Every structure is written in structure tokens, then in C-alpha cells.
């Protein structure tokens, strides 16, 4: 099946004041099929959010997309004019950000914030846009939508605000919704509700989703496929079962090992030694080698590329 979104060799660099480049994304590959939920997992600072912002072309100065291709069906997003790109944002690809508190305009009513998107992209008149908004508010399970419609963001709880962000994201029925750590800022019970909502929306609206997170529990729960990211590169990807049962990359293994499980007893919680490399000066060869327990001479010199090990399970490691 032809994927809905294909990202190849995406390189997004940020230029520092000293003229050095922070290689936040250094050759990222990603594909999302219709109706699929793909998770991107990695530590803080590995470039996960930069992938999301690069797809939407929202990278701000001093960041720049150096090379690569982003195809949405047959449209190359990186080559679109700014005007055309604006019509893609929010209509075909939309995004739900991490912190629901700050991503809503404090002086606009909730209904208007959802409605402006519907009016702009769908060309609805005010009355039908209003109905659309109420319908969407019901879809994201907001109680008494008529009242919430009239409310201002500060009158809503965090979980409610997150639901409103979902409502804004899906009001135009986009092909792809990017979820940038949608549950990180919420407490656990609300997290569970939001995850439930994501599942329901997927089933009902058949939308494709990219979910960026560092919570492996969530990934195991809702993702179809997983991309493991390290220091600006994808190091492993594949089917969620295959990744969790048999992680091939030493980093993926370490990552999965560092999670507590309720079923097994661990004497000590395993952590990965060392820290994320400085992306201005990434290590030569494989970027994980300074922290890798199974490094070989080759890892210092040559950069491993993603190779298919099993059906749809790719890994970039010399040791496999």
C-alpha cells in the first residue's frame, strides 16, 4: 500500500550564534499509511518535535530544513509555496501540541477558536460553522458543549483544554494529525481519558496519526508502528509487537530495559550510561557508540544505515 506520508532523508539544522550547526534531524526517514498510528520515541532533545515541525514547515529562524523530501500522498510539501502550505496546515495536516494551557488564546472564546479554523479552511458561513463546532465538541466528549463554546480557556481544566486542542485539530477532518506529546502535561487519570479519546477518534474518523512521546507505555497501548529516534536519527523502526518483543538496536533495548514493569521484579532500574550527545558535534560513525555496551571498531568510523532485518523491521546497527 502506498503510504500517506513519506519523509526521506530529512535534515533540519539550527545555526548557532557561533556559526555551528545543531543537527536536530540528520537524515530522518518516516512513513505513515492511511489509518495508521505511528509513534516516534526518543529521549528529550533527540529531535522528535523537530520532525513534527519540519513536516508542517514551521521551523523558525535560526532553524532550516537543509534537505530531504516530505510527500503527503503525491504532494511534495517542502516544495509548496507558503500560500499553498498554509492551506495544508490545519486542513490536511494538523497538530496537537504538548501543553494545552499555553496553546489556546486566552482572550478568545473556545467556540471561536475552533470555528476560525472551520471558516478559514472549509469556507463555512458562521451559522453552519457554529453547528460544526458543537458537533466536534461532542465528538471529543466535552460535556455541555453549548456552555463550553462560550467559555474562555481559563475557565477550563487541563484535560478539557486538551480536548479542545483535539477539537481544533480535527475540525477540518485532516488526513494526518500529529500529536506532540499530547499527554505529557496531564496527570495520569486524565492521560488515560485522552488516550481513550485518541483511540475512539481513530476508529470513528479513520485518521492517520503520528504520536511523539517518550512514554513507552503509551506506545505499547495505542501505536501500530514505532520509530526509535536517537540524536537526530532513526535507529530502528517496525511493528509495535516486533519492536517490543525483539528490540534489535542496543539503544532500543536499553530504552525498553529502563522501564519498570508491573509483571517482573527488577533489583535496580537500568539506566543508559552517559547522556545525549551534543548535536553540534555528533560522535563519528554510529551516534550511539559512546554509550553502547556492544560497540565494535567499525562503530567508531562508519555510519550504519537502516537495514531490513525482518518483515518491515528496520535497524541501523553494525552489531545486528
Amino acid at each position, binding site marked *: 500500500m502506498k503510504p500517506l506520508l513519506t519523509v526521506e532523508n530529512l535534515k533540519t539544522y539550527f545555526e548557532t550564534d557561533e556559526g555551528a550547526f545543531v543537527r536536530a534531524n540528520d537524515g530522518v526517514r518516516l512513513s505513515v499509511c492511511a489509518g495508521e498510528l505511528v509513534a516516534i520515541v526518543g529521549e528529550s532533545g533527540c529531535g522528535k518535535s523537530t520532525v513534527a515541525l519540519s513536516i508542517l514547515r*514551521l521551523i523558525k529562524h535560526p532553524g532550516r530544513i537543509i534537505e530531504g523530501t516530505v510527500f503527503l500522498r503525491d504532494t511534495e510539501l517542502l516544495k509548496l509555496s507558503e500560500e499553498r502550505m498554509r492551506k495544508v*496546515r490545519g486542513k490536511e495536516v494538523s*497538530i496537537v501540541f504538548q501543553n494545552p494551557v*499555553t496553546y489556546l488564546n486566552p482572550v478568545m472564546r473556545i467556540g471561536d477558536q475552533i470555528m476560525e479554523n472551520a471558516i*478559514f479552511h472549509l469556507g463555512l458561513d458562521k451559522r453552519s460553522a457554529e453547528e460544526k463546532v458543537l458537533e466536534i465538541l461532542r465528538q471529543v466528549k466535552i460535556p455541555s458543549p453549548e456552555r463550553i463554546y462560550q467559555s474562555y480557556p481559563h475557565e477550563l481544566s487541563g484535560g478539557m483544554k486538551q480536548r479542545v486542542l483535539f477539537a481544533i485539530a480535527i475540525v477540518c477532518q485532516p488526513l494526518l494529525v500529529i500529536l506532540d506529546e499530547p499527554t505529557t502535561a496531564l496527570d495520569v487519570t486524565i492521560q488515560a481519558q485522552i488516550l481513550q479519546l485518541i483511540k475512539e477518534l481513530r476508529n470513528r474518523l479513520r485518521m492517520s496519526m503520528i504520536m511523539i512521546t517518550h512514554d513507552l507505555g503509551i506506545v505499547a497501548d495505542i501505536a501500530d508502528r514505532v520509530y526509535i529516534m536517537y540524536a537526530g536519527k532513526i535507529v530502528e523502526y517496525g511493528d509495535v509487537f516486533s519492536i517490543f518483543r525483539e528490540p534489535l538496536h542496543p539503544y532500543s533495548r536499553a530504552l525498553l530495559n529502563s522501564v519498570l514493569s508491573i509483571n517482573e521484579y527488577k533489583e535496580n532500574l537500568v539506566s543508559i550510561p552517559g547522556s545525549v550527545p551534543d548535536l553540534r558535534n555528533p560522535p563519528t560513525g554510529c551516534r550511539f557508540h559512546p554509550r553502547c555496551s556492544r560497540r565494535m571498531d567499525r562503530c567508531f568510523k562508519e555510519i550504519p544505515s537502516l537495514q531490513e532485518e525482518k518483515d518491515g523491521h528496520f535497524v541501523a546497527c553494525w552489531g545486528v
Partner: protein
Amino acid sequence: MTGEVSQIGHYWRLYRKDKVAVIALLYIILIILAGIFAPVITKFPPLLTGAGPSFASPNAQHFMGTDDLGRDIFSGVIYGARVSMGVGFAAAVGSSLIGLFIGTIAAYYGRTYDMILMRITEIFFVIPMVFLAILLVAFFGSSVWNVIFVIIILSWPRTARLVRGQVLALKQRDFVKASKALGERDFYIMFREILPNTLAPIIVNGSIEVARAIVVEAGLSFLGLGSTDLTSWGIMLYKSQRFLVQQIWWTFSFPGVALFSTVLSLNVIADTLNTILNPRIRKRVVRQ
């Protein structure tokens, strides 16, 4: 709709707590009404000479007396409210609009736009008011429009700088990023998303600008640079400055008091608006 209404109601309840501010507001409304209904209230046209004897002291016919040419001072003060208030509001609205536009564009687009627009703003900052006024009067003659124009030219940079500062801070906020991610246009983001967030300081600044414009209008008129075919409090003061030494007090006192009390009221209103629209100060006041 109910949201907006209840919010205005909320601010009104806070405003109402300050009795002095309520009196100031009522006073300004009274002055505006007096200006509007001037022909009904007054018995004589304001510039009619010989409406009474020269230098009549306040009496039943002429509440505030008459000047050297027998013009009714009460009529002058009431009609003067039209010009003073009109100039004040027109200049405040005009300069606020220009300042809003320039300040927002400069801050939102930043870099080159900011550099160029702020340098232009600074150039306007350093134009000496009296010099510009004399120049305009010399070229176009003195009229109330020239006065408004001079005041706008001289006061928009203040608003522009204020707005620029606000927008610079606001454009970094996440909801602006979210708006961009939804594909909204720059102008929509600037004027529908960001600008409403700056409304509180702009309202406060605007009410101060009204007071300031009234004072500037009076100042220019006092120098003889104001309108010649209308009367304002400043013009009346200008014409009666000679009588200061002769102590014909009613000629300058009444327009002077009108000017003073109006400007004071506007400042009180601005101060109270600042208190209730600024949540940080508001908390302090409530705690007291």
C-alpha cells in the same frame, strides 16, 4: 455573546467600587452631553460679540459673565467642550490606530521591518511640537484639523512603542505557534489573535492620550496656533490672558477650571482602568 456581556459587567462591578472614578466618568459624560446639546443649553452663540455688555461679571443672564467684546463665557465654555473633547478623542483614536498598526507590524515581522519602522518612529519622536505646529499654520492656516493632525503626528510613536513591546512578548507565546500550525494568515494572527491580548494597556493608554491631546490643543491654542473660527477652552484662555493682570477672573477661570477638571477626570479614569484591567495590580487593590 453572553461571555462578552458578563465580562463587561464584571469590569463595571470592579470599576464601580472606586467612587472617585465613577464621579470622574459621570463628569466626562456630562461634558460630552453638554457639548452635544450646546445649542439647547446656551442662550447665545459662543462667538457672538455684544451678547451682553463688556466685562459683565457673572449674573443671571450670563452665568459666567462676558469678555471684552461682550461674548457670553458660558456659551464659550459649553461650545468649547465640543472642540476640546472632539480634538481629544479624534487625536487619541487616530494616534492609537496608527500606533497599533505600526507597532504590531514592527514587532510581528521583526528584524528589518522592526528596524526601519522603529527608526521612523524615533524620527517622529524628536520633532518639536511647537515647531511643527507653527510650520503647519504657516502653510495651511490655523484650523482645528491642523491641530488634530499635529497631535496625531506627535503622539502615535508612544502608542507604537507600547504596542511593539506587548506584541514582541505575545508573539513568542504558544498560541501564536498554534495559530500558524492551523494555517492562519499573518494579518489574522496579528490583529485577531495577538491584538486582543494587548487591549488592556491600549485602552489605558488611549484614555491618557485623550487627556494629553486636550492639554496640547489648549497649549497650541494658547500660543495662537489653534482654530480661528471655533472656540475651545485653550482659545478662550489665549484670548483672556491679557485680563489676568487686570484680575477679571471670570474670563480665564471658567475655561481654566473646565480644562483642568476634564483632564483630571480623564486621568482618574485611566488610572482606575489600569488598576482593574491589570490583574497583578488588581489583586493588590482587592487585598487592601
